[in-house]
């Protein structure tokens, strides 16, 4: 089923300018929203069942409902620090239709009575940052942002903030610290940002795609939006497909579309003659799925993925075909998280580093299959033991690869031993055992 909301005629020339966006009916949703009382706007968002598109899949309406009522300064932060490996959907939105994002932000701020909003964009997105900056200036000039927006009495100050290259700043509390001008270290939760976030004020944090969906929800009505997709995963989702596929790119699909249709139908599947070995359904942080028919036939929505032991995450499908080894993929994933760990929590800082060392040990031919057990046990020690989920984000895919590709990995351990000329496995001393001490 095809239904396009965000991507409808996305490559229309000049869509990044206000004139073209307005000609296409842009900012009409904002005008409509401003005729409602703020609570009604939030109600529409709640009715839509819109779930966060950044990774956690938390309902936006519920999150906005956590904000305390009252006159204290409240903030909205748009998370545009898109750094999850395999994810590049927000880039397309910000580059091609920045006003859709701005409109969504203004509507959300009106609904939640917020007067100060920030877009935290990753520093590497220079082009997208420049386009967004220009769009914000246009929106200010046209009165869609600023004081007394379209005569509604609502004020909003919108600031674009460029990051400087740190994956961890995509984590909501690290993002807040970074936005406050500090090193991007995650904070202890609770208090959650909705209660105490940016500058100690209540803060609503949402992903670019989530906010860009808001104008569509207002335009069509929350209840009608909820009819798209499945019961618990409503609407459409931008899916970034990359890796070993013939047509990598962003695709807008209705949630619940079979994964096979996305990977083979839209992205063209792997190169001719190759088979899918494994795929990440939601960025490199999600536990992997195999190329089996059972996995490929899974409907692509939040709950099905959770039931299959993985997650929809940011909606980034990374396909790995059979010309690559599982070990190679594992090493890339582990090295990334070891590099990006901020170092605040020990299980993550040490766990990611030791995982890389253990994988290197396998590659150098010194390991035995017992090392795989050790590797798996390190992952279980990381999960749930840190302030944020960066460590978990490595532990989940690595753990799932050891679990699902055990025989492949054992064969690779053997092959590496052979290459290195290490002795037969039976003579190898198990890890950690030198002399029996008892």
């Amino acid at each position, binding site marked *: 089923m*095809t239904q*396009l909301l965000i991507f*409808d*005629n*996305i*490559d*229309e020339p000049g869509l990044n300018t206000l004139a073209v966006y307005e000609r296409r009916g842009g900012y009409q949703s904002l005008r409509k929203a401003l005729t409602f009382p703020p609570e009604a706007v939030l109600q529409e968002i709640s009715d839509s069942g819109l779930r966060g598109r950044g990774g956690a899949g938390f309902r936006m309406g519920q999150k906005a409902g956590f904000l305390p009522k009252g006159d204290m*300064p409240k903030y909205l932060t748009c998370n545009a620090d898109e*750094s*999850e*490996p*395999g*994810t*590049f959907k927000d*880039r397309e939105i910000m*580059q*091609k239709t920045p006003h859709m994002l701005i409109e969504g932000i203004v509507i959300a701020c009106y609904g939640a009575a917020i007067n100060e909003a920030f877009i935290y964009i990753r*520093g*590497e*997105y220079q*082009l997208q940052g420049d386009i967004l900056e220009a769009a914000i200036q246009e929106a200010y000039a046209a009165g869609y942002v600023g004081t007394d927006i379209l005569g509604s009495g609502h004020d909003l100050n919108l*600031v674009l*903030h*460029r*990051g*400087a*290259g*740190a*994956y961890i700043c995509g984590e909501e509390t690290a993002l807040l610290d*970074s936005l*406050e*001008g*500090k*090193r*991007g270290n995650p904070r202890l939760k609770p208090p959650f940002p909705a209660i105490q976030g940016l*500058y100690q004020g209540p803060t609503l944090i949402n992903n670019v795609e989530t906010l860009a969906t808001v104008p569509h929800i207002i335009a069509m009505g929350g209840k009608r939006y909820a009819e798209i997709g499945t019961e618990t995963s409503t609407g459409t989702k931008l899916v*970034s497909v*990359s*890796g*070993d596929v013939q*047509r*990598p*790119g*962003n*695709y*807008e699909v209705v949630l619940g579309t079979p994964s096979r249709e996305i990977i083979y139908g*839209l*992205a063209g599947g792997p190169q001719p003659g190759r088979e899918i070995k494994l795929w990440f359904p939601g960025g*490199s942080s999600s536990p992997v799925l195999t190329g089996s028919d059972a996995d490929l036939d899974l409907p692509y929505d939040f709950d099905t993925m959770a039931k299959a032991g993985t997650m929809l995450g940011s909606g*980034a499908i*990374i396909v*790995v075909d059979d010309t*690559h080894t599982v070990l190679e*993929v594992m090493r*890339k*994933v582990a090295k*990334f998280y070891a*590099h*990006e760990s*901020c170092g605040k929590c020990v299980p993550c800082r040490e766990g990611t580093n030791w995982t890389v060392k253990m994988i290197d040990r396998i590659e150098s031919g010194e390991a035995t299959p017992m090392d795989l057990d050790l590797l798996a046990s390190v992952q279980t020690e990381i999960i749930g033991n840190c302030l944020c989920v960066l460590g978990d984000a490595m532990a989940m895919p690595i753990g799932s690869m050891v679990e699902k590709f055990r025989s492949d990995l054992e064969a690779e351990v053997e092959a590496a031993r052979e290459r290195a000329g290490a002795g037969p496995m039976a003579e190898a001393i198990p890890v950690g055992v030198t002399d029996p001490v008892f």
Partner: protein
Amino acid sequence: MSALPRAGEDRPKVPRFGHGSRVPGWDEAVDLTKPPATIPDPALTEVPDDLREEIEAAMARYPDRRSAAIPALHAAQQRHGWCSPQAIAQAASVMRLTPAYLTSVATFYDMFAMAPKPKHDVYVCTNISCSLLGADELHETFLELAHDNPDLNVCSFECLGACDIGPMASINGEYVGPLTADDAKQIVEDLHAGRPVLEHKQLRFRRCADPNANRADAESGNPPTA
């Protein structure tokens, strides 16, 4: 000025300050009897007017001026080429923060260089999607090219958010891909000639891959251009 260190080679020890050592013994152990480092005296720290204006404008945008730390460092790095002690001191003087504070922020982020770097940034994405398509070989190619072209700052970078054009690189901020070894040579030539790099492979001109995304495309039967 002596040649800058090439990629892959050990970098020589960096003089703490360009004009010698303003703080003698900076590489010695901490002297606990000394008073703590303070905010640079605005009267003694010379800051270019445009840099001061840019940082002050950034500070004015936020409820808390400290939020401008990253924009200030970006601005300072742009003028000095790297986050040199002078650059940090100038930013700190305008922001009324200690240089130590700004150094602690700058060292956290990948885009701030804490040592002098060559002129042209070549960030090669070597994360998973790109590496499946040969990014590690591409990185090697760029490193080899950097040997004869000391003005290339070749780094392997984590996911740059352009896996659809993998293997890709960000050349002075311009995303290009998918790249081959020949493209790498072309990029170096373009950089030296001062041309836009590899224009036909720039991300800014790429159309959305979704076949349904563009009604005009669908009606004319043209597949989206890759």
